């Protein structure tokens, strides 16, 4: 309880100040210890490199891409990538597990960026080493807010899934797939004191992609993923088969704590692939 209070105070304290480029406070004081206590992290773009626009044109939809610099082989591969937006109320964007079968540990997604912040990706290779790549993003002001624009429209389509594969697919070669999930991914910011609205968060928390039953991508994700979650990743279609996405959503009482949550609905969708 005490720790939570301290974290809350820290978050409040930080949000009151203006974030400057190079601001590492939330990373140094909170995130690093929470996720990587006692581990050393190499800051380098030689394993993965993160790319994001310098200015978040729409803070509700900021495209972020992680490119891998090593290939996925059974001997050595990227087995996990964490993504954080340091200065978001809930900094963890997600934890993504990759496999040799992924072919290539590249990952693109759209995230919410509440304020000026470093966005960082940390990769763990199969030898247990950690490497980090980061980019500073200036949040846009004006009338924008880091939520979806048309909640009702998103609710109407909830659960709808679309796949898209890059052209020129060849058997045995990594091919890029795009997975689009229609879901409002509600952050759950509560404003009960000024209106009658109290909205719990409601977001996709688990995603599993397989090809013919073999794992391609497993993800544990959170509210920093934009409404209508959109991912690009690779898999290796070695023979004809089914690319399958399974995911589930969750609802939590607090936007910034995952202590009280209730599981929601599970979804599944597959695409027949013929390389």
């Amino acid at each position, binding site marked *: 309880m005490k720790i939570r209070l301290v974290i809350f105070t820290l978050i409040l304290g930080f*949000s009151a100040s*203006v974030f400057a480029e190079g601001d590492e406070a939330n990373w140094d004081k909170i995130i690093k210890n929470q996720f990587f206590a006692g581990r050393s992290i190499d800051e380098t773009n030689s394993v993965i490199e993160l790319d994001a*626009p310098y200015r978040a*044109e*729409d803070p509700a*939809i900021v*495209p972020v*891409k992680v490119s891998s610099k090593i290939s996925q082989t059974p001997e050595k591969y990227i087995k996990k990538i964490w993504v954080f937006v340091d200065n978001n109320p809930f900094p963890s964007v997600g934890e993504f597990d990759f496999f040799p079968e992924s072919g290539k540990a590249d990952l*693109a997604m*759209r995230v919410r960026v*509440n*304020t000026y912040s470093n966005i960082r990706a940390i990769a763990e290779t199969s030898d247990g080493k950690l490497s980090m790549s980061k980019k500073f993003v200036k949040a*846009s*002001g*004006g*009338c*924008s*807010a*880091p*939520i979806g*624009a*048309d*909640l*009702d*429209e998103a609710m109407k*389509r909830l659960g*709808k899934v*679309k796949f*898209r594969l*890059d*052209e020129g697919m060849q058997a045995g070669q990594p091919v890029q797939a795009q997975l*689009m999930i*229609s879901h409002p991914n509600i952050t759950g*910011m509560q*404003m009960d*004191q*000024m*209106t*009658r*609205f109290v*909205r719990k968060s409601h977001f996709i928390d688990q995603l599993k992609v397989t090809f013919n039953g073999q794992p391609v991508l497993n993800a544990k994700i959170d509210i920093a993923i*934009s409404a*209508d979650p*959109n991912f*690009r990743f690779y898999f290796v279609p070695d023979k004809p088969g089914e690319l399958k996405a399974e995911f589930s959503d969750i609802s939590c009482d607090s936007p910034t704590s995952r202590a009280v949550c209730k599981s929601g609905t599970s979804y599944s969708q597959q695409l027949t692939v013929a390389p």
Partner: protein
Amino acid sequence: MRFFIVLLGLLICRVSLAIPGLSVTEVAPGVFVHISEHHWPDRTNHGEIANIGFIVGEQCVAVIDSGGSPQQGIALRIAIKQTTTKPVCYVINTHVHPDHIYGNSAFKATGVKFVGHHKLARAMATRAPHYLSKADELLDIRVNDDNIIPPNLQVRDSLTLNLGNRELVLTAHPTAHTDNDLSVYDKTTDTFWMADLVFLEHIPVIDGSIKGWISEMERLEKNHYKLVIPGHGRLIKDWPTSLQPQKNYLLQLTSEIKSMIKQGKTLEYAVETVGLAAKANWQLFDEFHRKNVTMAFAELEWDD
């Protein structure tokens, strides 16, 4: 003691005197507008960038958008007092954006009803925490929960307000500029206060639905109005001619983005390439165009 009371009185007077009445123009009998210049909201203009104003009836006054800061709300209140002795009975917010609602607190009084689209309160609830947390840093204004006043009179489809021998017809629009756009039609003068449903000079800003906005424009351009008041830009006396640049811009975005989606191009690529030919036509293009492409792309990729 008396000296202190006098001094206090002077100080209080100074506080209200320090804010001059907002400059307004009577654009039709009883219709007063403050036309703003086009600026990115910042610490210099404090977000006071929208066209705001009021309509005077025989009984009372309806404020239409209260301004981009509490100070501008007070300045508008003073301008109303300098114009008429009639009291304010309605504060109509045309949508949730801060440049249209931050003056609300200046009008909070018994007998004043706040009017908005039936989705305005929800939009305020979900967006206000973010807006409020940024106001100090980005706009150099002090605002808190008290400055966010949700409507206590909500418009689902349409609602007629009577200001005393003067009827205003309010329309709650389907998602267009935002998901909570409300327009005001003054029957007496055939004036249509469209607010941010129409932008002139200032690049249109999508914060709702590009498809919804286009279809709403196609519906509205079939009608004739003597005067149309946009949320940003000069008065329109040639409706629907002055709407065409906005419509063309949004149609062009739609067609370019749709063709990119068809080709399998990414959002990142579209943001760098779509619609750049329109740059010369609009003020604040660099500030808003990429956001427009982003929002439109995320919407249009769910088509079919």
